[in-house]
């Protein structure tokens, strides 16, 4: 942890960027979601529109189709979108980082521009029925042949696989080595023979999560990312970015709900019990602390630090913020539970998953204990 002064400020060109984006938004009305149009399909249209204006992948280098700016620039665009209640930026930052760090030059040059443009839609094939938080316990196996692999196994929690064309897949490539050295990463086109995708309905009614069945699927050598055994460090990089509030774009969503709670506290002055008023205050504190924390991480990253185990701290802070916020929101707006209900109850149910997805809160605590505090290993 740094203990010298940090610059929490925005980069000098950020206001300009925000201004240009607002002007662009004024000329490009938000697309309307068609009746029966699945959310991911609608979001893809939105993704392509944003990309056409140059607003996707701001922190990706120019030669790969990005703008060569910083994560903070991308977050500013997310903020602007949040402020006008538009859908957020497509969440591809962590996939892009995996390719940037581990892909070959050919893969980066071919795949990143298409990913940013929304021409290829990616999903992530990491978890398995028997390997969730214990990712190293995966059993999907890629058997090596001359010039290619055959892959057998099953993946789970693969978000929106039914709408995706490509999957960033992890599989074991050696049964004799320990898991951390024997997992490799692949690019799998989901239309390959032997791939079956089955959506799984979540508690909130959405079919975001999918199962992925892989029955002797052929993957070429050229579709491997990095060397055999690079899958584990790639996965760690990916989840580090995925756990960071900066990269997931959740912050502006929380901010909108926090303001809604504060407005309600003001409008219903004297009507809300004092205890509930304090709970709203606590949500404001959680949210503002998360914003300050994200700014600190940005300042540290500008100073050259890469995402590492401290992203487990970020994930726990994000979970605290999200779960307390939706819990409180249901108390302030009970009609969402008892009436017809809008999206708030669904969002509340989704918030319960925050302490599970991307590695459970308990796994994050293990990571902090072992990799940050360097506490001794259990017997």
């Amino acid at each position: 942890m740094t203990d010298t002064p940090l610059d929490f400020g925005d980069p000098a060109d950020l206001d300009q960027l925000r201004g240009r984006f607002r002007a662009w938004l004024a000329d490009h009305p938000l697309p309307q979601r068609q009746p029966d149009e699945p959310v991911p399909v609608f979001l893809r249209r939105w993704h392509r529109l944003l990309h056409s204006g140059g607003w996707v992948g701001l922190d990706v280098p120019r030669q790969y189709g990005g703008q060569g700016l910083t994560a903070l620039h991308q977050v500013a665009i997310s903020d602007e979108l949040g402020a006008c209640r538009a859908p957020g930026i497509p969440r591809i930052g962590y996939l892009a980082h995996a390719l940037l760090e581990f892909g070959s030059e050919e893969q980066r040059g071919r795949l990143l521009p298409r990913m940013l443009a929304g021409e290829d839609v990616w999903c992530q094939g990491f978890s398995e029925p028997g390997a969730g938080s214990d990712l190293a316990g995966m059993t999907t196996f890629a058997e090596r042949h001359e010039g290619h692999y055959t892959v057998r196994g099953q993946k789970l929690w693969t978000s929106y696989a039914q709408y995706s064309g490509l999957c960033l897949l992890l599989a074991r490539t050696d049964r004799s080595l320990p898991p951390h050295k024997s997992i490799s990463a692949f690019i799998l086109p989901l239309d390959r023979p032997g791939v079956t995708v089955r959506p799984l309905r979540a508690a909130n009614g959405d079919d975001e999560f999918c199962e992925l069945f892989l029955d002797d699927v052929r993957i070429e050598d050229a579709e491997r990312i990095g060397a055999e055994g690079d899958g584990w460090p790639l996965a760690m990089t990916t989840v580090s970015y995925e756990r960071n509030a900066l990269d997931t774009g959740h912050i502006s969503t929380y901010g909108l709900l926090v303001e809604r709670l504060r407005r309600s506290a003001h409008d219903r002055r004297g009507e809300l019990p004092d205890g509930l008023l304090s709970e709203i205050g606590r949500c404001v504190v959680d949210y503002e602390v998360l914003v300050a924390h994200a700014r600190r991480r940005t300042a540290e990253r500008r100073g050259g630090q890469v995402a590492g185990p401290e992203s487990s701290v970020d994930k726990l802070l994000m979970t605290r913020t999200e779960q307390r916020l939706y819990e409180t929101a249901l108390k302030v707006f009970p009609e969402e539970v008892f009436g017809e209900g809008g999206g708030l109850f669904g969002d509340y149910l989704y918030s319960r998953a925050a302490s599970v997805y991307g590695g459970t809160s308990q796994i994050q605590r293990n990571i902090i204990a072992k990799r940050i505090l360097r506490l001794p290993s259990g017997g």
Partner: protein
Amino acid sequence: MEAEEFLLVRDMFRSFATRFRASSADVKPATRAAAQEALGELGLGELRRTSPPAATVQECALLAEEHGKQPLTTSLIGTALLAPELLRLLGDDAPDEVPPVHGTTPTIALARDLRFPDFPRSHPGELVAWDCEGADGALCVTSDGSVTGVGLGPPSPSADLLRGIRSVPPGSPSHALGRLDPAALRHWQAYALVIVSSELVGAAASFVRQSVEYARDRRQYGREIGSFQAVQHLLADATVLVEACTSATRYAAWCLDNEPPGTALKAARVAKAEVNDSALEVVRTGMQVFGGIAQTWEHDAHLYLRKVLTGAMTLATTADLLTTLAEPEAVR
């Protein structure tokens, strides 16, 4: 300050803090006086006395963190960081002719319950002078921005054994020094909240570090207790809270250097609210990891607990802050 200059000042302060850290709860008055004199020689009271100040708020907040890391009896916060800032804010109003009743090295005066004095909004209550080691007077800011110099009475008992508190004799001479305009008043409140919070963050961070080191060494059931997941998760949670407090206070300090006072005051209130609850939770966790030894008079743990517990009540309590923050800025 230039980066190198700040590191120099910080390292100088660190050696001072290591040398003068209290070795027990029973510090002799002569030892306290010697420590305060050594602190005075560092000249940190000048950092915020001039306009423009020699150090940024962020730099002062980092020094306050350092002060919190060790059990110190010295008044860095009251006499070197808070009172000089107040005199600086008064600018030309600050007295220089009549010998002021607040003395030459003032600290600040708070309400009897250690919160910001609320009068004239409410009835004037009894005042106490806070963080009094080496102070010969105190400055009181009321909620309308009036600044008054007051004299010091006898020591007043407090749960925080390290920090000197003295009563302000009712009816004793006081001297009106001037008035802060609304923007300066907001700046003052934000600055005080940030500096006090920073000291508590330093205390919490240091106490977690000490309990982590203890968990690495202490063996029970034939293993280091830090290898038990139950203990690891306690310390991991404490670490998350320290990081949250650190981000919030340092951001608020940065706001004071770079943003309008209203923005800074909101950030400072957020920081104090986070620190009030989280620093206390962190110290309780650390004490649980230390176990029985932390329940003794000889161990440092109760000094940290006392500092953080009273610190959480100082200037603004969680209850004050949460209800204030629950409503949009425009209506306040």
